């Protein structure tokens, strides 16, 4: 679009690029001589390199030490900051809202508009407050919370809205957990989800490579402290969630709203053809307990659950245990920095000794376009964000869950409530 019209990137210093969707995660393909096996993916990677060089855009390329999934590295580098508007050609851009930024996914044409003009034409969205109270029980994570929220309001419940997650439970979450929650706003139909910046946010950002320093930091803090929603502000809609009542959650169907506790049974909806089709795809029968379902693949990673605390949670469950025979487990850090931090703590040894695979960062098995695939008919317990038909590979059956549930299921070889192993 820019080349066709002879336009430059208007603000290259406000533009950043990385590669994550189509990059391989096998070390020999990233750093060794082995080629990227998918030719079209290799071409896409080369084209991004050329475009960034031609237009003067900073690229964290395939072998860059700070490369990773865009929604992991934006916050990690301190690029994502409260009050900023952050856009990216990916729907999980909502993740960055955890830092009090207005962040949302856009399509390719709009990416072009931003590159050319640094502007986007927008309509004011409606507002949806999700008020969460009560403490999450041990073994119940931010992933279980957001899955429960999507189950409550539905996959189109947030359409046309920006969500603000509020309340004592949200304030008590750390930044990794907040990002997990905001990440899946789009699974509830909302383009953006936000959490008001607070001391947790500022402590997370302080000292990050692209965060302001010195006097600029003090000025930024002053500005950020004024961003939170006013007391008594009115929202177009509100929903209240009691977090203390939640259990580990898992999806059983082909959209993220089809979710139940791991201890639950598959619902019955006689006469609902779409529901029946979804269960047929999953190979599930109504009325059956979802736990005990044998699993073939376990994936820990993605922009939803590929951060250090996610890997720590999975490792804590796997330490001294083995992945069950016949189960393939992939652990894919969300960024090269997460990988280094995990290795410094020895987490990679826990995974490798348990029999899991330890990979380079990328989107990996969250979506079938980089070579990491779930085979037809196989069941995958996955910490990613979408259980759509064919999302992880043609005919693949995805059960979305937390890193704890994923690790517990890997050990038992069947869908398992992590509290049984804690």
């Amino acid at each position, binding site marked *: 679009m820019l080349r066709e019209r002879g336009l430059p990137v208007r603000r290259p210093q406000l533009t950043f690029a990385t590669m994550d969707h189509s990059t391989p995660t096998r070390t020999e393909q990233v750093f060794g001589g082995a080629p990227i096996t998918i030719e079209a993916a290799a071409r896409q990677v080369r084209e991004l390199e050329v475009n960034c060089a031609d237009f003067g855009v900073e690229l964290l390329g395939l072998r860059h030490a700070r490369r990773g999934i865009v929604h992991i590295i934006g916050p990690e580098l301190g690029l994502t900051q409260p009050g900023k508007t952050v856009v990216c050609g990916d729907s999980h851009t909502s993740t960055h809202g955890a830092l009090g930024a207005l962040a949302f996914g856009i*399509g*390719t044409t709009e990416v072009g508009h931003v590159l050319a003009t640094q502007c986007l034409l927008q309509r004011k969205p409606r507002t949806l407050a999700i008020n969460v109270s009560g403490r999450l029980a041990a073994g119940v994570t931010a992933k279980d919370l957001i899955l429960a929220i999507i189950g409550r309001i539905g996959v189109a419940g947030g359409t046309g809205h920006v969500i603000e997650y509020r309340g004592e439970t949200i304030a008590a979450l750390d930044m990794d957990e907040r990002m997990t929650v905001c990440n899946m706003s789009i699974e509830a139909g909302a383009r953006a989800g936000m959490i008001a910046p607070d001391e947790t946010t500022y402590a997370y950002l302080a000292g990050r490579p692209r965060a302001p320093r010195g006097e600029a930091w003090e000025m930024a803090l002053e500005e950020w402290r004024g961003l939170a929603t006013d007391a008594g502000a009115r929202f177009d809609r509100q929903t209240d969630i009691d977090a203390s009542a939640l259990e580990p959650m898992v999806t059983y169907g082909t*959209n993220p709203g089809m979710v139940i506790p791991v201890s639950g049974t598959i619902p019955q909806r006689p006469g609902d053809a779409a529901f029946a089709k979804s269960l047929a795809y999953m190979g599930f029968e109504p009325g059956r307990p979802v736990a005990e379902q044998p699993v073939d693949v376990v994936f820990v990673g993605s922009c939803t659950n590929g951060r250090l605390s996610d890997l720590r949670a999975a490792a804590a469950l796997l330490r001294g245990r083995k992945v069950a025979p016949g189960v393939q487990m992939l652990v894919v850090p969300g960024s090269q920095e997460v990988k280094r931090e995990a290795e410094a703590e020895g987490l990679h040894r826990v995974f490798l000794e348990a029999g899991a695979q330890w990979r380079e960062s990328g989107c990996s098995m969250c979506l079938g376009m980089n070579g990491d695939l779930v085979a037809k008919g196989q069941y995958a317990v996955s910490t990613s964000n979408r259980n759509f038909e064919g999302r992880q590979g043609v005919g693949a059956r995805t059960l979305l869950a937390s890193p704890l549930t994923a690790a517990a299921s890997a050990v038992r070889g069947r869908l398992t409530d992590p509290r049984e192993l804690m």
Partner: protein
Amino acid sequence: MDPIKTLRARTVVLPVSDVDTDQIIPARFLTTTTRSGLGAHLFADWRYGSDGEPKADFVLNRPEAKGCTILVAGNNFGCGSSREHAPWALADYGFRAVVSTQIADIFRNNSLKNGLLPVIVDPAAHGWLMEHPGAQITLELETSTLTLPTGQAVRFPLEPFARYCLMNGVDELGFLLGREQQIRAFEERRPAGPPA
């Protein structure tokens, strides 16, 4: 982009709710670096068997679907990923409009930029359309109305700016580039460097 003022065409009905963009075009086709030819992969996993042959029972493969350029889908169409390949694939296949009770925000935005008209109608009109595949309907942009063959007309939401762009074949980038002065004035009030 060609201007659209009126669209009169027959419908094909896809009786599935919550159609996500991974169904419209699976991720394995996204490594393409051009947007042409994506229509061949539209609904790939529903449309073709594992042998690559078209499935006779899929709605788009039925003889009566030929020449139908308005897609009527179940509730909530286009959820999921922001891939613009979804409207590209629908438009490349030949669709000019998609009708549902709800259309996901990002998909809707992407569609408007590619001359694919996203039409949100009330459950009653939607129910009628779902029950009458092949119906000849008219979409009038000037009045934002969908007219059924029964003569009944229902309005659909279309913000004035989007309507203007569609009816005049104006693309938003041209509009934005024409606001150079305002953009420059804004930038002068802001620090020039990377995020503070």
